[in-house]
């Protein structure tokens, strides 16, 4: 019961954020070119959409590399940790032929959880940085 409701809430949250972004760009309240606005959309998806998948982590990379900086570097480090942990813990056979066991498997699980959390935080921080760069203009000023 909890997870379906949480997944639905995260979908509504992301679609609301995306629509707000489009309206803000349309109204000129957020000055982002197409590359930055598209990157912000992808980062909003990563930060707000509750379900994670390995390929989602690639989405912001090419657009982010148009203007690389500390945010994209932090994201790369976090996503790499999350992916390596994911492949070793949950997708045996992708990186190594045989599944891990014992302590190695436990460490892979920790790496996955920490990497996923760090990816979430790095995505949110990167998104906030882009929105800050786009700088909202106060209505009527």
């Amino acid at each position, binding site marked *: 019961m909890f997870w379906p409701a949480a997944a639905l809430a995260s979908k509504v949250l992301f679609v609301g954020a*995306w629509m707000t*972004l*489009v309206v803000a*760009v*349309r*109204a*000129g*309240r957020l*000055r*982002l*070119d*197409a*590359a*930055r*606005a*598209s990157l912000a*959309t*992808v980062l909003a*998806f990563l930060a707000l959409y509750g379900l994670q998948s*390995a*390929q989602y*982590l*690639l*989405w912001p*990379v*090419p*657009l982010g*590399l*148009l*203007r*690389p*900086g*500390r*945010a*994209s570097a932090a994201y*790369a480090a976090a*996503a*790499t940790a999350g*992916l*390596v942990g994911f*492949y070793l813990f949950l*997708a*045996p*056979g*992708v*990186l190594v*032929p045989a599944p891990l066991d014992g302590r190695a498997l436990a460490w892979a699980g920790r790496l996955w959880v920490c990497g996923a959390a760090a990816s979430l935080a790095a995505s949110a921080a990167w998104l906030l*940085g882009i929105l*800050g*760069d*786009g*700088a*909202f*203009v*106060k209505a*009527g*000023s």
Partner: protein
Amino acid sequence: MRRALLGPVLVALVLRLVVVLATDRVVADVARYERVARHLLDVSWNPYETRRLYPYPPPWAAAEAAAGWLARRGVGSFAANVKLPVLAADLLLVALLAAAARAGRAAPFAPWLYAVHPVSVLVGAAHGQFDAIPLVLLLLAVEESARGRRDASALALSAAIATKSFPVLALPLLALDGKAPCPSRSPTPARSPASSSPTAASPTSAGPASAAASSGWQPARCPGARPCSGPRPPSPRRSSSSARG
């Protein structure tokens, strides 16, 4: 110019080929791709006939079928074959970033960063997920829009959406690119026209790209530098071609 392109493309190619060959196993998504290929080659050319078999738009199904067809004829393994279009898309992404860097719309080292980016290597070359294909088309759409070629941008975005559905999120943003009304008050110091030219870009220039500034590089075209509405300035390529007559 050729060396600036060849270097990162070669590094990307070698790195990904090594990983593709080292992870030549039919597991995870590659196992699902093989199941679709078997269905397409042995059962029906319609992958949507069987429920929960194939959730993507049609083009990727052709890549899966081709990989299976080649593997059955002894040309490569299925796992390596099915990753080749992804590898090609990664190389095109490197080339596209190099072109953007040459035009002053990306950092000079952007193609190198993508060539060795661990997320790209893991997701594409190791896992075999094909998101690099819609991403190269999405980046092409963004770049064509930045050059003022909206028709080409629309075609590239259409192709991206036809490959995987997520680039549809960029549709309204690309449609609005350069069309937003001018804000009533600029939140950042106004830039002179010269400051938006590639030659004027410098690490010391103030502006919104603070993250890029921290890396010592400033983009040539910053948000708001382009006129908010009205006709776009001609792209350098158009200028040069018209100058040639």
